[in-house]
């Protein structure tokens, strides 16, 4: 004890030196022996999964052409119809102080719609201001395009997602099959399936919608499934004890009780649809994403920023409009 206590402090000065020496000699030694270990030779794939993928994609494009054409037509039709319905509502232009200030009628409609959906006047005002600003920042057409693409894709994703979620919720087999598929859909880098989407559906809104649906589908499934599975056992028993058949149990007990969770899934799907609808601009889907992409490509920082801001506001509108639907009643 005494010996350690009286260890002279001056020796501590040697500690950094010792560490330095150890590190240096290790590095030297490693540099001599390890160089060959570190630089691995290039290793070409022994199993050519990439070639096989190409083969499959080519085969599909060649043989299922009419099917993909039909999907493309359907998606374009829905998207265009929605877009037309939105853009049909006129914009009034008033000259104020030498500036053409635009007043889109939609901003007023949106005001009431959001007020109704969210139950708060502030959300209505958010919509009013956003659309008014979009119109006067020169982004009106782009905003409506993004809206249309988002809604088209979200609509499809949700109408496929909720039934899948219900099936997964009541059947473990479906649940086990669908789970890895959802993982794949959500974690596969989006650019990977943007490319085949173009091969199958050409450029434009249709492949964008397909990619968006793939991305926006999982949360509806997951949250519906979760909601159904989390219905308290006692409530299911109560349904059964009063003589519900399978269908009645589902429609009168499980789905209504799971409703808040399902609506959360709807909200999530819409939000993811928006984020993907923006990225889909890379394959010519247009909209606000197109502005962002052009801004980046031409180094126009301002153009990119304004379009980006418009995306943020659009997201807020969509979120507020759908977040409260499940909570009402």
């Amino acid at each position, binding site marked *: 004890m005494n010996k350690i206590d009286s260890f002279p402090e001056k020796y501590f000065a040697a500690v950094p030196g010792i560490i330095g020496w150890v590190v240096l000699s290790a590095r030297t030694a490693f540099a001599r022996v390890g160089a060959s270990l570190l630089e691995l030779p290039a290793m070409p794939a022994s199993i050519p999964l990439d070639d096989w993928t190409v083969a499959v994609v080519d085969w599909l494009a060649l043989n299922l052409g009419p099917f993909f054409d039909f999907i493309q037509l359907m998606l374009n039709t829905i998207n265009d119809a929605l877009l037309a319905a939105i853009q049909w509502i006129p914009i009034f232009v008033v000259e104020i102080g030498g500036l053409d200030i635009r007043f889109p009628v939609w901003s007023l409609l949106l005001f009431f719609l959001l007020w109704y959906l969210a139950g708060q006047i502030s959300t209505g005002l958010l919509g009013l201001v956003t659309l008014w600003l979009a119109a006067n920042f020169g982004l009106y057409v782009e905003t409506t395009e993004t809206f249309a693409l988002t809604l088209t894709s979200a609509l499809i994703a949700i109408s496929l997602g909720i039934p899948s979620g219900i099936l997964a919720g009541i059947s473990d087999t479906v649940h086990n099959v669908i789970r890895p598929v959802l993982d794949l859909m959500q974690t596969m880098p989006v650019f990977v399936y943007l490319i085949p989407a173009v091969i199958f559906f050409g450029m434009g809104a249709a492949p964008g919608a397909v990619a968006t649906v793939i991305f926006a589908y999982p949360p509806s499934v997951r949250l519906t499934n979760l909601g159904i599975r989390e219905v*308290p056992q*006692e*409530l299911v*028993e*109560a349904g*059964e*004890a*009063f*003589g*519900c*058949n399978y269908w*009645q149990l589902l429609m*009168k*007990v499980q789905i*209504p*009780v799971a*409703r808040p969770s399902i609506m959360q899934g709807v909200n999530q799907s819409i939000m993811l649809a928006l984020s993907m609808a923006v990225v889909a601009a890379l394959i010519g889907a247009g909209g606000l994403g197109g502005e962002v992409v052009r801004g980046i490509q031409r180094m126009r920082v301002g153009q990119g920023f304004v379009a980006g801001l418009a995306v943020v506001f659009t997201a807020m509108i969509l979120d507020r409009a759908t977040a409260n639907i499940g909570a009402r*009643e």
Partner: protein
Amino acid sequence: MPSIELEGVYKIFGDEPEKALKLIDEGASKTEVREETGQVIGVQDITFKIKNNELFVIMGLSGSGKSTLLRCVNRLVEPTKGRIMLHSDGKDYDITSAEKEELREVRETQVSMVFQNFALFPHRTVLDNIAFGLEIQGISQEERERKSQELIEVVGLEGFGDSYPSQLSGGMQQRVGLARGLATGAEALLMDEPFSALDPLIKVEMQDELLDLMENMQRTILFVTHDLDEALKVGDRITIMDGGKMVQKGVPEEIIVNPKTEYVADFVENADPSDVLRAETVADKDFRLDENDKVRLDELTEVELGDEGEVLKGYLSGTPVPIRPLDEYERIEEEALLFSSPDTPISEIMRARLDYTSHPVLVLKNQEFIGSVGEKNILRGLLEKGRGE
């Protein structure tokens, strides 16, 4: 009129129940069965019959299999072995062998259920919750509303029809649960610890109301609880379960007076027997007639008996006094001796002694004097729960 019969009902949890059944036949215990086969015994060889209009209580601690057994009766839990018969609406249903559709029909019309945590549907109003069973029966909207409105009044929730369950207190929620159970018109009612989740005061109130309701409605009830006081209070008969087995069955007083096993005795130890012990059980029945046909009950009190054992006269300190029924003591102004029936709970005698007289209370069975209840008898009854005279 409904009655429910259980015959050798077993429930084994696990995927190889046959192995477990075989071991049980060989006399293995619950633990041995679990260790050897991995199967868990839920309930084991239960046989009893619930009579028409009876409130039959299954009592036991958690894990004793009481809720499992209750669920076997409407097959929310599938019994492994045994037979469950329901006689209801003039028809005989063999629950255990019923096909899906028949079983569904039984649940819809013959047997309903009340749950421990109420199990109300959060998305439905009180009225719609009550009407749930009727909706499943396919009854028209108007009729449903009329019936549920009626039941809302029966359970005392007038004005809450449009509220949602989350807006109600626990006691009120269970009233809705009870109303929903009664609404279908099913005459057999399964109650799974219906009052266990309620505050003690509300619980007592609900027990009283259930008893009141049962006087006006014809219902055969299987009632599960872990609370002996509750079992003693509401039960016409009680069966006590331990480890999936039925350890004792009988009317409340039998359980208190004569607990068959250590397990039951432990329960009884902490129960309040005053509502359960009857006058006849605690009475001093060991009396002697003197040469004048008089019986001396204590230093002051004497009664004179007739040839049939009927009481002719009562005396206090040698002075004749009238003899009046116990339940009228509040209206008696002069000094009198009280008499009770053999079935009067001693709690009532205690109350009368406290408020009116300290003299022994006579116990008469069809007019015949069979004994008297004095202070000592009551104290002994309470301390010894009627055992060991």
